């Protein structure tokens, strides 16, 4: 990597030397009414008589000597605009986006001063104002202001959005199944076998230009749209040369310098960039190993005929995991750190064609430590006063270390009315974790003594997205814009050698195994998705209306494997001196699991002495493969019914062809074969040029993912219930109605109120199988569900209060959601027998009743100061279903007040409060300080009964302080 950095460095030096001391004015020109970009707008510089024309992306780019200029923007049949006092500094970039309006009777030229329009937050708002669908956005500027490091975090800023598990977006209370994540207009695949939507944390914010969330469906969007479509636009053709380098160090007040931080003794050479170098991979010898698949028969064969060759083969097989320890190493993990390098340039040829590229590299290493990690389980009695009975109580620590490396390379070429681009984005994250619950009791199975639990894991997720795309302007059907894209996406989630150990310890300190807990095992899981996508969108602008039509095809192929190898002590005899039993090892895991204690340890007379052995507990039905294929076509038209009333009407036809096969056994494959027509109708009524009313209705759908269709059981290592797939599961049909009032008092101000309602037929939910003797989740279609909500968003500068605070800006948004998913009678009728007060509905999983975001920012551009205070609060959300008489489990960011029982006393949430302050020096260097989670909340999941909050899981993520040094040049 060092070489690449050196090469890049010299490249930039040479590029910068070649540049003259000029400045740049650049921006995008859009139609003030529709928000469409305008191609071919003339920009004339009064002082030089020079100028430029906007390209196919609606962008222009002017190089000017330092000074003050007046620019005139003109376009046929549009009203010209003159902007005065555009100040160009040597090496500086002046962003000047502009909206032009169709000519009206009044022919007076509009003259404005440049200072009235500046940042890209404005363009995001303008996009919002003029968009055909209800949408919210967040600009790259805003992302960097708050100091979010990845796209998932950034989503917290968006009205109605919350983030689940740090990765998954919940839009309007609807989990990842109902939201689409797109990058540059194409859906991103999930890297999690249990999820539908992409892990947005894989996309670093430095690669992001803006994020737009569409909340109402138009036929040009994928049909599996209900909560919203998140579209991340990565940086495309840059305005000019730039080089940004930033490096940060961070301190997590729980993890950094903490000598109790635990790590896997297996440390590969490439762990630091998030790759397993093979140290943890599934040993070849373990695959379909006959001794392990038929351990009992192997032992019997050796007992009957202790043949030396067979013993030697047997021992080699049994000892494949001997160098995969269950011990852990303690030591301070050091500082969190990150490095980002991004560069790009734009070249112009004489004939006005332009070529540009972007290159980015990012590296990040973070550590987290929860010194009070709690995992509890309860059994529920019918008796109201004795409802919550302890089953398993455990606590300890969890140590997490995460390394990410990623890069982006993109290039675009503009020629005439065409633009062609190519991009490759790669990201890889490796998460190491050690869960060490060394304090615990297990009253559900053990009358006395302790229970200890350890899980050592490594998870590597990667995403490679390569895209070719183009945009062309042609003169048929009026003016037609043709946009196309073809993607190949490779995503994977690789979890090699997760090690689980759960062991009771007697009051006397002896370790032993119990039937209620699986014996220690090694677990391997690997998911690979290959996805091919293509789309074609055509937009034809006629005199009276605009038509958009096109098609989309996507095929995803998945291969999933899961292997498990479990310790067996069946053949052992503790009386043999050669064998060290678990009790005798007294917690010395290295000796107990070591090669010397595994396999055939020797012979006593003619009979073999057995030590630990391993059996292959891989369930052949847990290996599955499948595909998801969607083909769609759509047609939509935009009509102006009156000068003030615009309508967008159209429909999309989508075919769903899904199939999942388990690789063995006689289970029927999961299959979905369906065609859906998804109509959409939108009205936009302009009350005046600052305010809109919007009304829209649509039908959309939601599909199960392949995991949900694959009929196998997977186990939750954190003590949650296992979950089984359902090959008979069906897709969900949804009807959406939205109403919105929006007011844009000034270019950077907004006030909006939205109301929405959704009806779901056959929503996919998890249900605890009430007929199973051990609680187990399955995916089912509930008959129906309804969801309604309201959103309010407000952004304003505070200058109206007093000029003293004119540099302050304030933004708030509030979302309220109410949802009802009806319980199926299969669950309700049974559970009512043990809990007569059981409600026959519950909300959607991960839906908070309310979400509030608050943003207060202070900018003093002249002196280079900017600072932001950001708060995010969400109400308790459904985390898991209760079994039998047990209440459902909810999650909240709260504060553990009862330290003895690790319980919250109230489920009122504690806000996540983040602060960032940044100082820019001489336009090139900057220093920023972030403090995240100032209020230091605890993440708690609980079951509420009679006003008490029985904790099922808890951890304390700690505060993070981060210092970032930045260097950026641009010419």
């Amino acid at each position, binding site marked *: 990597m060092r070489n690449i950095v050196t090469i890049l460095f010299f490249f930039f030096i040479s590029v910068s030397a070649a540049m003259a001391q000029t400045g740049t004015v650049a921006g995008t020109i859009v139609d003030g009414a529709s928000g469409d970009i305008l191609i071919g707008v003339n920009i004339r510089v009064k002082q030089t008589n020079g100028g430029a024309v906007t390209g196919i992306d609606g962008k222009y780019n002017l190089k000017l000597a330092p000074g003050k200029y007046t620019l005139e923007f003109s376009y046929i049949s549009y009203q010209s605009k003159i902007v005065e006092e555009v100040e160009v500094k040597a090496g500086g970039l002046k962003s000047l986006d502009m909206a032009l309006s169709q000519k009206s009777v009044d022919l007076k030229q509009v003259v404005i001063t440049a200072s009235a329009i500046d940042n890209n937050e404005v363009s995001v708002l303008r996009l919002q104002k003029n968009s055909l669908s209800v949408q919210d956005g967040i600009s790259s500027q805003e992302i960097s202001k708050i100091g979010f490091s990845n796209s998932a975090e950034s989503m917290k800023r968006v009205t109605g959005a919350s983030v689940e598990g740090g990765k998954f977006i919940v839009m309007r209370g609807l989990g990842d199944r109902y939201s689409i994540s797109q990058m540059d207009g194409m859906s991103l695949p999930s890297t999690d076998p249990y999820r539908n939507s992409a892990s947005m944390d894989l996309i670093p914010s430095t690669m992001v230009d803006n994020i737009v969330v569409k909340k109402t469906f138009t036929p040009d969007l994928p049909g599996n749209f209900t909560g919203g479509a998140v579209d991340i636009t990565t940086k495309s053709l840059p305005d000019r040369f730039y080089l940004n380098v930033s490096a940060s160090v961070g301190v997590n007040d729980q993890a950094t310098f903490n000598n109790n931080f635990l790590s896997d003794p297996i440390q590969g050479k490439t762990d630091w960039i998030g790759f397993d170098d093979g140290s943890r991979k599934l040993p070849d010898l373990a695959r379909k190993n006959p001794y392990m698949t038929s351990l*009992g028969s192997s032992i019997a064969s050796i007992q009957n005929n202790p043949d030396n060759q067979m013993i030697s083969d047997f021992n080699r097989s049994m000892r494949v995991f001997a160098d995969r320890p269950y011990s852990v190493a303690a030591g301070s993990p050091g500082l969190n750190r990150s490095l980002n390098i991004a560069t790009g340039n734009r070249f112009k040829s004489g004939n006005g064609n332009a070529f540009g590229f972007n290159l980015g590299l990012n590296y990040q290493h973070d550590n987290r430590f929860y010194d009070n990690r709690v995992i509890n389980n309860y059994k529920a009695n019918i008796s109201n006063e004795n409802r919550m*009975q302890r089953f398993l109580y455990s606590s300890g620590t969890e140590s997490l270390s995460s390394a990410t490396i990623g890069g982006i390379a993109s290039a675009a070429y503009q020629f005439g009315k065409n633009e062609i681009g190519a991009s490759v984005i790669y990201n890889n994250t490796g998460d190491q974790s050690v869960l060490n619950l060394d304090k615990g009791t297990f009253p559900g199975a053990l009358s006395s003594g302790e229970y200890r639990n350890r899980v050592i894991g490594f998870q590597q997720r990667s995403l490679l997205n390569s895209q070719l795309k183009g945009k062309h302007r042609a003169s048929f059907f009026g003016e037609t814009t043709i946009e196309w894209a073809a993607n190949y996406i490779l995503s994977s989630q690789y979890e090699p050698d997760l090690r689980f150990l759960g062991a009771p310890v007697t009051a006397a300190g002896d370790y032993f195994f119990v039937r209620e807990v699986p014996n220690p095992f090694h677990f391997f899981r690997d998911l690979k998705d290959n996805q091919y996508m293509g789309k074609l969108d055509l937009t034809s602008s006629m005199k009276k209306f605009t038509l958009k039509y096109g098609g989309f095809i996507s095929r995803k192929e998945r291969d999933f494997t899961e292997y498990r190898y479990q310790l067996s002590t069946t053949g052992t005899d503790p009386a043999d001196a050669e064998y060290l039993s678990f009790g005798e090892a007294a917690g010395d895991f290295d000796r107990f699991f070591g090669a010397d204690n595994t396999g055939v340890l020797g012979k006593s007379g003619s009979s073999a002495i057995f030590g630990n052995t391993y059996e292959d*507990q891989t369930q052949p039905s847990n290996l599955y493969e499948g595909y998801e294929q969607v083909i769609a076509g759509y047609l939509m038209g935009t009509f102006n019914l009156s000068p003030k009333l615009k309508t967008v009407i159209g429909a999309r036809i989508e075919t769903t062809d899904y199939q999942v096969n388990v690789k063995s056994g006689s289970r029927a494959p999961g299959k979905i074969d369906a065609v859906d027509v998804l109509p959409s109708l939108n009205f936009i009524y302009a009350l005046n040029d600052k305010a809109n009313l919007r009304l829209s209705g649509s039908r959309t759908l939601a599909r199960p993912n392949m995991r949900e269709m694959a009929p196998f059981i997977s*186990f939750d290592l954190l003590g949650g219930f296992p979950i089984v797939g359902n090959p008979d599961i069906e897709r969900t049909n949804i009807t959406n109605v939205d109403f919105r009032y929006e007011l844009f008092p000034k270019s950077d101000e907004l006030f909006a109120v939205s109301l929405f309602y959704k009806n779901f037929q056959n929503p996919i939910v998890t249900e605890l199988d009430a007929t199973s*003797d051990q609680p187990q989740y399955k995916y089912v279609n509930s008959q129906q569900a309804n969801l309604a909500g309201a959103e309010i968003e407000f952004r304003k500068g505070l200058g109206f209060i007093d000029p003293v605070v004119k540099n302050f800006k304030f933004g708030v948004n509030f979302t309220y959601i109410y949802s009802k998913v009806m319980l199926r009678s299969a669950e309700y009728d049974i559970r009512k027998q043990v809990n007569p007060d059981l409600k026959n509905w519950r909300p959607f999983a991960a839906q908070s009743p309310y979400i509030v975001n608050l943003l207060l920012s202070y900018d003093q551009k002249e002196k280079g100061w900017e600072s932001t205070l950001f708060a995010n609060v969400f109400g308790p959300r459904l985390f898991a279903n209760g079994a*039998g008489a047990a209440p459902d489990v909810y999650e909240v960011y709260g504060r553990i007040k009862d330290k003895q029982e690790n319980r919250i006393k109230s489920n009122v949430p504690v806000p996540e409060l983040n602060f960032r302050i940044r100082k820019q020096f001489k336009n090139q260097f900057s220093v920023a300080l972030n403090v995240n989670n100032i209020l230091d909340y605890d993440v708690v999941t609980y079951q509420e009964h009679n006003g008490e909050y029985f904790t099922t899981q808890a951890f304390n993520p700690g505060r993070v302080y981060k210092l970032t040094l930045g260097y950026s040049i641009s010419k």
Partner: protein
Amino acid sequence: MITAKKFLSILAISVVASGMYACKDNDDPAPEPGNKHPYADLIVDNGVILYEPIKGNRTLSNDSVYYIDGYVFVESGELKIEAGTVIMGFENPSDVSEGNESSLIITRNATINAAGTKENPIIFTSEKDQEALGGSPNLGPSNSKLWAGLIVLGKAPVFAGGATELQIEGIPDGEARAMYGGAEAAHSSGILKYVSIRFTGAEIGPGDEIQGLTLGGVGSGTTIEDIDIFVSADDGIEIFGGTVNIKRISVAFAEDDAFDFDLGWAGFGQYLFTLQKSDNSDFVGEWDGADPDDASLYTTARIYNWTAIGQGAAGTRDAGFSAMVIRDGGALSVYNSIITDFNGKGIEIEDRGESFDSYSKYIGGENKITGNIWFGHGATSILDMVVPTSADGFTPADPTGATIGAKLTADENVFTDPQLKGISRTNGSAGLDPRPDAAAATTDLATVLAADVTKGAVQTTYKGAFDPAGTVWLADWTTLARFGYLK
């Protein structure tokens, strides 16, 4: 005999497409030419592989040896098994089978008619077991998990978490054929008599194993008598609810609990025998009541004449643990039994300070533990052998166990060595004679409940499973006898 080499070749068999396979028995459909079961070459000449669901009446005759490949569900009709028939399970089912372990499952819509005789018992065992086919014993107490086990499901009442019909443990969920329970208390699943079940307990998932014999919701119309369970990686026998009565059941070398009762079993058991290994075993009796603990249907079974031999003085189980436990609101009675040679303590009756816990039921007189002999190596008296429930998040009513101890003493429980005539856990030793000393075993006898007498329970003149002066019913036909453990 299958040699080690042949054994490996079994395992090396690769994936073969499904279809119909060679069957050599007249009762079976004719083999389709060209299709051969992947394991067809590995079985004895008169072998028949069962790997598909059985529908309608079917007879397994004693002139064939049957092999179970994967889950074999008897979906309907009567499965008749002739006396003397041997049925063997594969440890690693073939690719054409259902499921990952070999198990015979009598669904609640079917019945089993397995009436063996003392001379010709029916044997369910591993395909490795040479003794079952007339050879010498080649397997022992450490050879568990060689196949899964026998499951019988019925329509008698069960209860868990509000559900009165449940899926049986050991079969992956979502399998409708694995449902059991109902409202027919007198339901009959058929007959199991003189049946030997050996080397069972394969695991289908973490913590999910199949015991030697699993009875789910089996009704009182069913006959379960003279059953021999020899070596299981899980429980010997586990009864989930139902009303069935069981007699003369021997469980030797179960790695979990010998007798595990749960979810409201309401029958009785008489003449039960347990022999534990000195290592790798749990309770001689794990007796759970209900789910949840205060469900209205909880286990109320009565156990008469049980002889339980624990791990012995050399046992590796923690000395603080009890040999048996009654918990989760269970109210089971134990009469005229001998629980001996346990290495630690004797009994725990779960006491969580709740009105519906097993302790409250016992002290309240719902169930009786009367007229039993206790002896173990980690205790010195009735009072000393009681394990109090440890206080973790609740306050026990009897934190020292003194109240339980006093009640046990008052109810004619004595702590004394019953002086069994011989205890041996060694193959071929001929050292096992579980008959007690006559004097100790014939005093202070409790009376068998009249209601159970009407259902077939016998008023005995002795404690324990064996008449001190009579013959040992294990003799001749059980694995303990045939493998030479018995005197």
